[in-house]
C-alpha cells in the first residue's frame, strides 16, 4: 500500500506541474497585450503599459515568470488583480459559497444515485431499473444550462416555489435548486456505474462464498457486495469533479451566485489574466488532489487496483 501511494505521488508531481504549465501558458503565453485595452475609449499611454508590465513582472522571460508564479502560489502570496484588489480576498469571498454549492450537489447526487443505482442493480429489468435507465440517458443528454433554465422558469418563475436567483449571502436553502441542477446531469454516470457493478457483483464468486459461509443476506449485500461496488463508484465521482467544476461556471452565472466559477468567468471577461491563471491553477490542483485521494481510497478498498 505504501509503495502504491509513493508511486502514485511520484506520478502526481509531473502531471500537476505539466497541467499548471499548460493552463498558465494558455493564459499568458498566447499573443495579446493585457494592458493595451484597459483605458476605455482612449488608447493607453506607453508609460502606463510599461509601468504595469514591470509591476506584474511581465517583462521577464516566460519561464522566469512561471517560476515566480509558482513561488507566489506556494508561499500563499497570490498577488493582486490589475485593479489592485488582493486575489486572495476575491477567492476567500467566493470560496465558501462554491464550497457549499459543491458539497450540497455531491450530497444530492450521491444520495440519489446510490439509492436508485443499487436498487435497480439488485432488481434488474424491473420497473425502477428501466425507468431510471431511460431517465438517466435523457438527463445525461441535457446540457447543464438547459436544465438550469427550465428549472429556473418552472420552479422559480411559474410555480414560485423557490427564488429564481440566489441572494449574495447564499444560504443553503437557496442553493438547493442550483445544486440539484448541477447534480442531475452528472448523477446519471454514477448511477449507471453503480447499477452495472452491483449487477456484476451479484453473480460473483465472492458473494456465493459469503452466502455459503452462512452470513445473513443483509451482511452479504451490505458489506461484501458494497465494498466491491464502492471502488468504481468513487473513481467516477472523482472524475466527475471536472464536470462539476466546469458546470459551476455556468450554473453560478444563471442563478447569479457569487462563487469561484462566476469569479473566474468575470475575470476572463475583464481580461484579468493574473486572476484567471491563479484561480484556474488552484482549481486544477484541487481537482488533481481530489483524484489522488480517490485513487488511494480505491486502492485501500480494492487491493487489485494497486498493481495498475
Amino acid at each position: 500500500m505504501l509503495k502504491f501511494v509513493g508511486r502514485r505521488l511520484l506520478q502526481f508531481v509531473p502531471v500537476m506541474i505539466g497541467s499548471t504549465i499548460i493552463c498558465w501558458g494558455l493564459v499568458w503565453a498566447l499573443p495579446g497585450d493585457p494592458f493595451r485595452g484597459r483605458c476605455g475609449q482612449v488608447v493607453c499611454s506607453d508609460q502606463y503599459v510599461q509601468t504595469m508590465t514591470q509591476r506584474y513582472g511581465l517583462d521577464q522571460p516566460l519561464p522566469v515568470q512561471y517560476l515566480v508564479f509558482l513561488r507566489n502560489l506556494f508561499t500563499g502570496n497570490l498577488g493582486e488583480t490589475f485593479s489592485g484588489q488582493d486575489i486572495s480576498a476575491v477567492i476567500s469571498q467566493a470560496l465558501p459559497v462554491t464550497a457549499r454549492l459543491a458539497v450540497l450537489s455531491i450530497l444530492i447526487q450521491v444520495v440519489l444515485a446510490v439509492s436508485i443505482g443499487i436498487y435497480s442493480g439488485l432488481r434488474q429489468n424491473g420497473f425502477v431499473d428501466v425507468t431510471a435507465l431511460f431517465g438517466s440517458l435523457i438527463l445525461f443528454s441535457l446540457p447543464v444550462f438547459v436544465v438550469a433554465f427550465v428549472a429556473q422558469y418552472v420552479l422559480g418563475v411559474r410555480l414560485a416555489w423557490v427564488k429564481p436567483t440566489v441572494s449574495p449571502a447564499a444560504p443553503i436553502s437557496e442553493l438547493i435548486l442550483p445544486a440539484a441542477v448541477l447534480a442531475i446531469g452528472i448523477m446519471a454516470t454514477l448511477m449507471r456505474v453503480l447499477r452495472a457493478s452491483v449487477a456484476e457483483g451479484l453473480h460473483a464468486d465472492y458473494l456465493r462464498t459469503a452466502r455459503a459461509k452462512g452470513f445473513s443476506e443483509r451482511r452479504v449485500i451490505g458489506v461484501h457486495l458494497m465494498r466491491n461496488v464502492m471502488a468504481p463508484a468513487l473513481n467516477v465521482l472523482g472524475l466527475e469533479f471536472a464536470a462539476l467544476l466546469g458546470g459551476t461556471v455556468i450554473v453560478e452565472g444563471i442563478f447569479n451566485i457569487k462563487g469561484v466559477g462566476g469569479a473566474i468567468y468575470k475575470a476572463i471577461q475583464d481580461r484579468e489574466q493574473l486572476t484567471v491563471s491563479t484561480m484556474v491553477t488552484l482549481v486544477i490542483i484541487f481537482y488533481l488532489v481530489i483524484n489522488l485521494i480517490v485513487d488511494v481510497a480505491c486502492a485501500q478498498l480494492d487491493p487489485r487496483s494497486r498493481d495498475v
Partner: protein
Amino acid sequence: MSEPLAEEMAAEVLGGQTDSAGPTGPVSRGEEEASDTRTRGVWIDAWRVLRSKPLFLISIGVILILTLMAIAPSWFASGDPNQGSLSKSLQGPSSEGWFGFDVNGRNVYTRVVYGARASLTVGFACTLGTTLIGIVLGSVAAYSSGPVDSVISRIGDMLLGIPFALAGIIVLSTLTTFDTPNWQVETILILTIIVFGWPSIARVLRSTVLVTRNADYVVAGKALGLSGSRVLFRHILPNAISPILVLSTMRVGGYIATEASLSYLGLGLHPPAVSWGQMVSDGQPYLRTGFHVLLFPSIFLAITILAFVLAGEALREALDPTNRR
C-alpha cells in the same frame, strides 16, 4: 462535459472485449481468412442486432435528418434566419412561425434549422479528430511501451487534469475577440476540443490493445513471422475498435454540448452565424416573457445529443459479445 459516462460505457464494452480475447476468443486458423471472416462476422452480427432495434433506427433517422438540415437548411425552412420584423417581437408560436419569434422578430423555427450546422460541424469534426489522434497515439503507446508509452500517457494525464470547460473558456477568450471571423472561431474551438479530448480515447485504446496484445491469435500471428505493423493493423486494431466506436459515438453529443455551452457563454460563434447555444443566451433576458425563444433551441439541442447517446448505447449492446448468446 460528458466524458466520464461515455468512458464508463466503453469500459463496459472493454470488459466484454476482455472476455472475447481470453480463452473463448477467436482461434487463429489461417491468419488471413480467419481475420477476414471474423471481422466481417462481428459487424454483420452487430448489424443484425441493430436492424431490429427501434430506438437505434429512430436515433439514426434523427441524426440523418439533422445532417441534411445542416447541409441544406433551405430545404427545411424558407426565409433568412437573420431577417426579422420588429412588429412580431416575442410573439408566441403560431401557424406563421411554428416556434414563435424572438425579440428581434426573427422566426425561431428558421433560426433553429440554420443552427444545426454549427452544432453538427463541431460534433463531427471533433469526433473525427479526437478519434484519429486517440487511435494513433493510444496504439503507439500500448505497442511501443517503455519511455514512449510513459511520455504519451503522462501528456494525456496532464491534458485530462484540466477540466474541459475551463480549457475551452480560457483558450477561446484569449485567442478570439468579437471581430474574429466565425470560421476562425469555429476552427479554434474544434482544435481546442481535439487537443483536450484525445487523451480519453487514447487511454481506452491503450488498455484494450494491452489486453489484446497477449491474446492467443496475436501470439500465433507473431509466431507465423508477421511484421509488427501487420499484427497491429490486421489483428489487434480490428479487435480494439469497437469500444472506441461506441465511445466516439456517445461523445459526439458531449462535443455538441460543449460547443453550445461555450456559445451560451458568448465565447463561441457570434452573429450573423446562428448556433443553438447563442440562441439560448440571447433568449435569457426574456425568460419570463418569451420562454419559447429559449425552449425550442434547447429541445433541438437535447434531441440531437440524445440521438447520439442512444445510437452509441445501442451500438454498445450490439457489439458486446456477452449479449450474443
